[in-house]
């Protein structure tokens, strides 16, 4: 073996032994540095005759290449090891908590109002609003309840001591029906609208609060009849509860502002102590539950609202929003709706991204 070969072997062994990048650099300098033995050996080629050079060069070049490759490989290995060690030092305890952004929520009543708007928009209903501080003409008289009407007294009305310039009594609306009157006076017929909002009655117990939410529906057109009312409510409840087995029972009833008047019951069963809407109310294990009042708009109401009752007719209905929200989403205490307890709001509220859409289904599952 030549001396060169011996030196090469020794250098490769030393490179392999190098434990650090510094030690490796030492080896590089010793072999390939300016004064390194490989560099010096290469320099000797300059003083040789072409024949000598041809004979000596390949060995030196090959030694240089072998050592350079070895250094490169060793360097990569050492760097990888060092990175690994560094990463090991940087290890975090990821069971420690990360900062959490507070989670907000949308109130169930708002959510259900958005659901109502979405479903009824598909049926061509606009959303109408009106004042909550009303006068007795819009709240009662125009709805066919004159001053002496016994139904007025049944409404548990909140009154203000004030009067309108025409001398009408001022009160908190007891239902959303005055919005019917205002909308018909504004827009005439045909008309399709829902009017959700706050209403007030002087009543307070486990299932009644002095403020609650109602939604009014109104359709006035030329050939609207009770069958359309039934279809509309059925269609709405099927969409709202997202089930096809909704069965409604219409019962004759009485409201001054409709004729005929109809109470709407829905069949339900009780599962795990909770009412679950669906099925026929007379089926085993089922019963009927009252959901709201409705009927064909009384022609006197149409007259009050400036619509010709010989040309137009229509239906109206009213539903309790809090109540249908409770039925759908399982709340059992109405008073908690208005308490502002963040625990309740977080539990029963909705993510802001649960925007009701028809394509995704208007409801939001827990």
């Amino acid at each position, binding site marked *: 073996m030549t001396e060169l070969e011996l030196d090469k072997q020794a250098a490769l062994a030393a490179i392999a032994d190098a434990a650090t990048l510094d030690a490796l650099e030492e080896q590089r300098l010793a072999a390939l540095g300016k004064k390194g033995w490989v560099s010096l050996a290469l320099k000797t080629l300059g003083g040789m005759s072409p024949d000598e050079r041809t004979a000596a060069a390949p060995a030196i070049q090959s030694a240089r290449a072998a050592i350079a490759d070895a250094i490169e490989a060793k360097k990569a290995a050492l760097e990888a090891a060092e990175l690994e060690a560094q990463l090991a030092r940087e290890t975090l305890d990821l069971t420690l908590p990360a900062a959490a952004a507070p989670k*907000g929520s949308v109130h169930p009543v708002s959510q259900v109002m958005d659901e109502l708007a979405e479903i009824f928009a598909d049926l061509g209903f*606009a959303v109408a609003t009106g004042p909550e501080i009303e006068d007795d003409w819009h709240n009662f008289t125009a709805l066919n309840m004159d001053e002496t009407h016994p139904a007025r007294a049944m409404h548990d009305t909140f009154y*203000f001591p*004030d009067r309108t310039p025409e001398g009408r009594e001022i009160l908190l609306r007891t239902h959303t029906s005055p919005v019917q009157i205002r909308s018909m006076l504004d827009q005439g017929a045909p008309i399709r609208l829902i009017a959700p909002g*706050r209403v007030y009655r002087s009543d*307070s117990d486990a299932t009644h609060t002095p403020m609650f939410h109602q939604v009014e529906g109104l359709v006035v057109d030329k050939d609207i009849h009770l*069958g359309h009312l039934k279809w509309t409510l059925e269609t709405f409840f099927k969409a709202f509860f997202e089930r096809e087995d909704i069965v409604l029972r219409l019962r004759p009833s009485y409201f001054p502002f409709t004729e005929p008047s109809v109470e709407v019951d829905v069949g339900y069963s009780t599962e795990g102590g909770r009412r679950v809407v669906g099925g026929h109310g007379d089926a085993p294990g089922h019963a009927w539950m009252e959901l709201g009042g409705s009927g064909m708009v009384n022609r006197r109401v149409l007259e009050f609202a400036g619509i010709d009752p010989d040309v137009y007719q229509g239906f109206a209905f009213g539903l309790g929003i809090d109540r249908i929200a409770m039925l759908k989403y399982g709340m059992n205490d109405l008073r908690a709706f208005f308490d502002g307890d963040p625990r309740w709001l977080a539990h029963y509220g909705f993510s802001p991204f649960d925007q009701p859409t028809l394509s995704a289904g208007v409801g939001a599952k827990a």
Partner: protein
Amino acid sequence: MKFSLTWLKDHLETTATVAEICDALNAVGLEVEGVEDPAERLAGFRVAHVLTAARHPDADKLQVLTVDTGEGDPLQVVCGAPNARAGMKGVLGLPGATVPANGMVLRKSAIRGVGSNGMMCSVRELELGEDHDGIIELPDDAPVGTSFADYHGASPVIEVAVTPNRPDCMGVYGIARDLASKGLGTLKPIATPSFSASGACPVEIRTDDPEGCPAFYGRVIKGVTNGASPDWLQQRLKSAGQRPISLLVDLTNYLMLGYGRPAHVYDLAKLSGAMAARRAIDGEQCQALNEKTYTLDASMTVIADESQVHDIAGIMGGEHSGVSETTTDVLLEIAYFDPARIGATGRKLGLASDARTRFERGVDPEFLDAGLDLLTGLIVELAGGSASDVVRAGSPPSNAKVIAFDPALTTRLGGVEVAEAEQKRILESLGFAISGDWQVTCPPRRHDIEGPADLVEEVVRIHGLDKVASVALPRAEGVARPTATPQQKLERGLRRAAAATGLNEAITWSFLPEWAAEHFSSDQPLWVLANPISEDMKAMRPSLLPGLLMAAKRNADRGASGSRLFEIGRRYFRAGNGLSEEKPTLGIVLAGEKAERGWQAGKAKVLDAYDAKALALQLLEAAGAPIQNLMVMGEAGAQFHPGQSATLRLGPKTVLARFGMVHPATLKAFDVDGPIAAVELFLDAIPARKNAAFARPTFAPPALQAVTRDFAFLVPVTLAAGDLVRSVQGADKAVITGVRVFDVFAGAGVPEGHKSLAIEVTLQPGEASFKDADLKALAEKIIAAAAKLGAALRG
């Protein structure tokens, strides 16, 4: 209304079951609220014969009975009743039966060492009356072993809700009529016991108030014997929830509950002179049968003799002339009162009664003579006496309404096809008369029938609403059009934006305690309820913050670490015309820590006014307000910390929002711990976006890179940072695209009365990159603009 099946069957010939009857009641609009079957309550109680009775060996007051129950060997029963004795018949509760009065389940037991196999029952234990002096004694002919429910004639009791438009169904007879029409059976004619009347009525009767009392009929019966009512009458009244009082009183109640016809019986001995229906005199008093004294006024109709008021007409009789056990001669009154007058009087006096309920809804004006004869016949039959002729003052309204009806309207309005013959049958069965050309004459008892739509209702409710098929509403072609108004879209978007920032949406009461509303009120008078349900719900809110502060307090009192609440709702003000002006508003209250202590951040972060500002701006931006153009100004209101609150305005007058820290005095008034930050956005002030279109203005990101330069200025400590920023922005509007304050410092190295504001200015080159000279010129412009505000570049 409650009535027993037996009572219903007095008037309706039917083989229908209780369930069928209930279904039919619901179907015709008489909502069944409950059915109670006493046979179920009395299950396990039997007619029993006491064979022997002997003293209990260990107890003086107890006896040991042997009782025959009609089957098997006689049972041994221990009994404490003093009237228990051999040979009597009574009611035995067998082991397993539940005592109705107390829910106790009877068991075989030993009483003082003697076995007892049941219980002999008192009237009260079976809830048949109040008597508890001893056990029930049945007549000797009571069949031993029969179930007591059968023996007692217990009949299921049905309770229905009668809607206010149907006073004709506020009597069992009217209900029977509806059921007969529905096909449940045959309506029987009213059975009036025959009697002979002779002699003129000895009492003069007048109506001096023909408006309030158009008709007043009367008759005297002399020589009656008042006492307890017969069982059949007591049972019927009890089924209706009425306590039997005395025969004469019970019979008037029977007329009212059975036929919807209130009447009154006066003790003739207590009357003096003519009886007249007249207006009360202001201040006149009447002690009513409920033992309360009412002060009347001239708007009210009364029945009075020459000395005093005996009846608050149509509502309640007077105590003075009420009948008693000793009454022998009576005056019967049957009258027709103006429904509106009765309602007004009742409301004014706060006096409710079964009679008022019927009169104010309207009784049958055709049932005066027949009703009076029915009452007379029953009194004469059961209480004896001789009746005078009827005396009549005035006459009830008699104009029967005639409605031109088109039977096709039933389909047009009711959505169901009903054959004309069937429509005719239904209406006639309810008492309507129909001519060949469909002129429909209404029975006067049906005050609710006003026009053709009411006839449709009659036809449809009897025919069956279940036969109305669903028919789809006509639908516009294509995809449903959007319906939401800009205001609705604004509120919906804002609600979800607010929730996305981590706030919980609350809904709080629209009304507040007056002090809380007052605390937040402006210069306008509040809307204050005349009849609040409580002092805590009295004044309409002029701000959303008090309700949210009260919620935050409740939460803190419950131990919550904080509340991050928002609400979108109305504030209630007064419009110029005296009506309400309700302004849509978003309110936010942040209570507690901004961020809790943590392993990374260390101490908890405290809320400050900048948290409120950030929310205000973020939500205004979400609402589409031009937030670059907003001015930060003062006057957030006295409820805010004067140095840590502001308004955001579009122009000097249009306030879009207020925000800041709540004033310590407000915290104190609401008894809640601070610091609390609050925001209110005035949604009605946010300008609608004009000319909004789907297509955005054309835009391409600038090709050249922006350059930033930092400047530190020494400024007077009073200079608002915003002013410096705005001034610097104005130095070259085309090029300066951003100015951001990144340091505020006062203290060492900064002269007294000054602070250092460091800003980062972003410069956007247009066509060509900046040259050094350009940047130098821009820097000079910026420094010059700042200098106008007294700012000097820090060396």
